[in-house]
């Protein structure tokens, strides 16, 4: 008797998709993985909204209102939510704007940049508003696990997921957490 497949959802918030690329770096383990899981919302499936899932993988921090909605949707649907990579855990590169005042930051980009004249900060309701600071995801929702790295290597992600799928508490050994 085969066990029912686990459902996994993934997304990138204020990230660069580097962690997703690293996820693809598990290479031939992808074949093992698709035997064990099926994908819900993810750039791999192009499903737009997340349904009930077992595992949610979040890349990137929270920089705008849309990120908050997506993150909450994941939290509400995923039994286990995992912060993947430096931006999800600490805010990472996007959080470098945190020591600047948001207004000054936006005006610099949209009004004062060389070659721009008469520009203004976009105010289309379609565009999500920026939060005044970029936050790690655990400051906005409850997070169950963290996979560090920029990005975490393919073997790290595979070790973590295979532990989780097998029901073991994930343990990253020293070589998988050693970055220099």
């Amino acid at each position, binding site marked *: 008797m085969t066990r029912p497949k686990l459902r996994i959802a993934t997304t990138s918030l204020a990230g660069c998709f580097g962690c997703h690329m690293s996820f693809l770096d598990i290479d031939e383990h992808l074949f093992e993985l698709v035997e064990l899981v099926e994908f819900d919302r993810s750039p791999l499936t192009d499903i737009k909204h997340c349904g009930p899932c077992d595992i949610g993988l979040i890349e990137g921090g929270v920089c705008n*209102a849309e990120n908050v909605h997506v993150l*909450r949707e994941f939290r*509400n649907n995923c039994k286990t939510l995992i912060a993947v990579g430096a931006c999800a855990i600490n805010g990472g590169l996007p959080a470098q704007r945190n020591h600047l005042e948001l*207004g000054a930051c936006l005006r610099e980009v949209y009004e004062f940049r060389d070659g721009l004249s008469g520009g203004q900060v976009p105010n289309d309701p379609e565009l999500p508003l920026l939060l*005044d600071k970029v936050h790690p995801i655990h*400051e906005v*929702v409850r997070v169950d696990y963290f996979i560090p790295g920029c990005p975490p290597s393919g073997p790290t992600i595979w070790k973590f997921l295979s532990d989780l799928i097998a029901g073991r508490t994930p343990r990253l050994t020293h070589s998988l957490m050693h970055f220099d």
Partner: protein
Amino acid sequence: MPGIERCVSEIVTRHGADPSQLLQILIQVQDVIGYLPADCLSLIAEALDLPRARVEGVAGFYSFLHSRPVGRYRILFSDNITDRMLGAPALMQALCSKLWVEPGKLSEDGLVSITTTSCTGMCDQGPAALINGRPVTRLDHRRINEIAELVRQQVPVSAWPAAFFNVEDNIRRRDALLASTAAPGDALRAAIRVGREGWLTEMERSRLRGRGGAGFTTAVKWKACRDADGADKVIVCNADEGEPGTFKDRVLLASHADLVFEGMTLAAWATGAQKGFMYLRGEYRYLLEHLQAVLERRRAAGLLGAGIRGQAGFDFDIDIHLGAGAYVCGEETALLESLEGKRGTPRIRPPFPVTHGYLGRPTVVNNVETLAKTTLVALEGGEAFAATGTAQSTGTKLLSVSGDCAYPGIYEYPFGVSIERVLEDCGASDAQAVQAGGASGVLIAGYEFHRRVAFEDVPTAGAFMVFDSGRDAFEIARNFVDFFAHESCGFCTPCRVGTSLLKGYMDKLASGHGAKPDLADIEWVTRLLKNASHCGLGSSAPNPVIDTLVKFRPTFERRLESLHFEPAFDLDAALATARRITGRDDAAAHLDRKKETQR
């Protein structure tokens, strides 16, 4: 800056250009210049032949040393929970607004800076402050007005009314130690009569244990030091009484200094040490002159120096070193580092100070009260001393009683006294809790008031803070968490980060953003702090939170905004800037706190 150069070279020369005097040199240079400018640190580094980074590291470690200018009037409000309960925060706010200065900042004219500091040991006569290093007690609005006026008219602190600086002993109950009528030298005579070996035997019989909190048997420590290799042994008196709510050592030093110095000399008699240090916390600097005078008197009386009481080969003298506002230096190995002129980072033990202490020499470090108690052992004999107290805790204990009671002050009881008895004596009729042993001690709830002060039940270094039924146990724990986050020396990650995380969670709960999972996270951080910290500061830092969560859990639970996760900040408010810039106010320009968060 020829003036600074001359000042630095004079002070360095006075200390024999000895790098182990670095902290004392920095303190004295700052006394003259007002702060420690960068080029001054370079001059000191050069004169002592030390790396610049080492000097800067020490200058940056101690909170009473300043690398930037501070006010000519530097006012530090004691921030212990007992000061807060007596209204210190409002008084500080009032003084700040009268003098047009923000807390923690220097006034524009460089005249005054006002901020808070950890407990100054005046809990029985608070709210208290240190003004240019001198303690001012019993602050109230009237006194604050007077201080504001004196500062505005730039009256030098030395010309302020003496009543401001009045520090009372407030001794409420005397027992063996405080009622002692021994004259200076009596205890020494008795100990010399029985010989060095006989004196140690008396100490063993007394089963005296350290009064600083850990309760190590004093005779064992002395013997280990005596038997350690190396002839140049050292006796250190730990007068860095930084545990919030403790002030017994202040009273002993102010009114019974002879007993303390005599205890140090008795330790020298037992171990053969010739060098003694008293490490006096910066907050008690006002006692320095008095203590120096006592030392001078004892030298003149032949109780210190060469051939003490006519005994050839019994040579011993004592220097006083000042601390500069670092709680962690109360830990004995951090204290030794500080004595050597370094940052007060605790050492890894073993080796223990008894074999490798001050400059690697065999060293005994004893608490002020422990040393004073040894005079009783010398006078009465070990058996008689051990006749009071309990089986494992012999003799008496000084309690520093403060908080919600009618008669705060010093109470000396034989070990084994019940909490109830102390509460009754100090006039605390409405107590709901007692913090015994200070911030790192234990919180005793009402149902435990039958428990007894002794190493086998409620151990305490002496603090006894009483909280009546109007007090909020959460706020008490939060005050202590702030204290530890401020006093963590920063050396090890579990403590440096853990104490800040704990503070973050407490602030989150206090600001109304608490959620049920935070309690689990707090418990996780407390376990981490307890098990992974480098020294006792980190491992005892979570004590107040652990106790409060067990005994007063509802004070945490009633602060929970949600049973699910709750961010520590207001998400909708975080969009306000972007709303203003874009001029938007549509539905998508807002984030509902409750929406979408069910899990």
